[in-house]
């Protein structure tokens, strides 16, 4: 049923009748609001006396009519509404919402700002890891200041609990590398050099790297989630106001734990990787003893220590990044998740970049 609209002497009278249910409101909306707008600065009367029922959406239509007229600078009168209905509709006052602000951004400036933010973030992360390393030194000199229970718990989680998955992955990586390399070496009749290459690749590089990637996924994310949750539940604030330094209390035991366990774990991972590399050699009738002899001949103590040192550096960096992500957790339902993701991604990127830097450094130093 269309509304009855009459206009005379600058006054538009919109008479509505029947039931104002959802379907009818949808059909009427454009027509009625358009007519109210057409009234301009004049007077609009909405006659609702013949309405049998005004549903929730019906009231919204009346509010829209009222708002439209008031914004246009006109006057409006509603007839036939109950006092409660009129009070609700009258809340649709003539306050225009602010215009949405035009995005004051430009591709070039966005890229610049993002780059500067990333640099700030990098500088802050380096500073944090440096402070964590200093705290680590303090804790080693003053063992009484350590939270031993936390240290042992995290050592168990990041060391013993990580052992099976780290060794398994490292073993598979060793197997794949040896398997893929053999056809290429066969072309030059050098398949018997596989143990030499495996020794270098696994012990100097892949053992520590696979261990660090697992560490970033398991412990880095766990640190960010644990500390992030503590931040959200104000436990970090509680530590601060109790005069306890959150860095010393939360960061030091975690970073120290991974700094102890990761080099050890990396030794096991390297051994598993070397063993994995032997599996394709079974087809070539190479005995394990001969294979291991080849590996041993290819590397010396410096290569082994290089791998262990890398694992130690990776552990401090991943532990530091994980803890920092947790302490930087913002508020909101997705905050802890975002911190965890940041810890894992930043941790993996950092160790791979750092690995490149260390390779260059060792090469420059001739080791």
């Amino acid at each position, binding site marked *: 049923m269309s509304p009855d609209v009459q206009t005379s002497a600058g006054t538009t009278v919109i008479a509505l009748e029947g039931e104002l249910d959802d379907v009818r409101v949808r059909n009427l909306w454009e027509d009625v609001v358009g007519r109210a707008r057409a009234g301009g600065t004049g007077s609009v009367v909405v006659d609702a006396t013949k309405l049998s029922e005004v549903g929730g959406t019906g009231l919204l239509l009346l509010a829209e009519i009222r708002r439209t007229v*008031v914004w246009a600078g006109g006057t409006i009168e509603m007839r036939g509404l109950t006092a409660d209905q009129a009070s609700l509709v009258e809340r649709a006052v*003539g306050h225009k919402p602010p215009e949405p602000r035009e995005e004051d951004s430009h591709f070039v400036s966005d890229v610049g700002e993002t780059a500067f933010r990333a640099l700030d973030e990098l500088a802050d992360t380096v500073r944090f890891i440096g402070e964590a390393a200093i705290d680590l030194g303090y804790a080693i000199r003053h063992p009484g200041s350590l939270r031993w229970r936390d240290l042992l718990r995290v050592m168990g989680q990041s060391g013993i609990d990580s052992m099976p998955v780290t060794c398994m992955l490292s073993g598979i990586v060793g197997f794949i590398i040896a398997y893929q390399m053999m056809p290429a070496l066969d072309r030059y009749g050098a398949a018997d050099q596989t143990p030499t290459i495996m020794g270098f690749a696994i012990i100097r590089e892949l053992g520590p790297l696979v261990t660090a990637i697992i560490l970033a996924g398991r412990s880095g994310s766990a640190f960010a989630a644990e500390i992030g949750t503590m931040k959200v539940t104000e*436990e970090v604030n509680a530590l601060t106001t109790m005069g306890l330094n959150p860095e010393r209390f939360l960061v030091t035991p975690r970073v120290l734990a991974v700094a102890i366990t990761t080099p050890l774990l990396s030794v096991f991972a390297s051994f598993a990787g070397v063993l994995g590399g032997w599996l394709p050699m079974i087809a070539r009738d190479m005995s394990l003893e001969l294979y291991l002899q080849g590996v041993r001949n290819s590397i010396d103590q410096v290569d082994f220590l290089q791998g262990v040192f890398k694992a130690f550096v990776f552990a401090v960096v991943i532990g530091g990044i994980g803890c920092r992500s947790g302490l930087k957790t913002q508020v909101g339902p997705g905050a802890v998740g975002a911190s965890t993701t940041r810890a894992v991604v930043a941790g993996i990127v950092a160790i791979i970049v750092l690995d490149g830097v260390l390779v260059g450094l060792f090469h420059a130093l001739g080791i």
Partner: protein
Amino acid sequence: MLTTAASTETVIEAKDLSVGYGGRAVLTGINFTVASGEVFVIAGGSGCGKSTLMKAMITLLPPVAGTLRIAGHDLVTGGDEAVNDVRRSIGVMYQGGALFGGLTVLENVRLALEEQGLFTWTEMNSLALSLLAMVDLDEHCNKMPSALSGGMQKRAAVARAMAMNPQIVFLDEPSAGLDPISSAGFDQMVVRLARSTGRTFVVVTHELPSIFTIADRMVVLGGAQKTQLAIGSPKELLESGPPDVRRFLARQPEEDRPQGAAS
């Protein structure tokens, strides 16, 4: 109610204080003093800046301008030293309790004592147990915080806040999330602790029954400019405070919003 005689020592002094975030004031014109042994309530509607003011008082936010003196230490001019001194003089109960989830209730309370390094292990356990007894939680001392109800966690947090023998105990929204009975029980506990220990309690709340039960004096925050609306005892303010404050204390919502000029 506790006495608030003029001769009593002032433990908190705020003068022309502005507090906010990143150097930008969100709450200005704060002027009050709190006497030793008082239960002082910071009240106001949601979003009026109560929590921001409390964060400044417990050293989590640096004041933007003015003077803020807690337990004799000036947080505006005193630098890190004053911040550390204030932290040694206060205890805080956070809204959700903020107990450390990996420690038992007893360990949570003992932690503060451990860091003091003054007592032996046995003494610390006895002290922590006594503190828990003061909040009726001694029989739950070996439970993990997750095994306690919300009200019990808050009571344990009060025991932890009092462990370092603070001059001032801050309570952030103690009634939030509690049923009326637990809330009333908590209020009685606060009054009992204040009277028996003589410590100063600063309570941030907007719960009117709590305010009338516990407050010796209160400051009401609010207004369009977010400032201090009034200070006094709840009874005084209800009877002769500014209209906004009387409406707040009488639980009367604001009058209907102004209508459009052209209606």
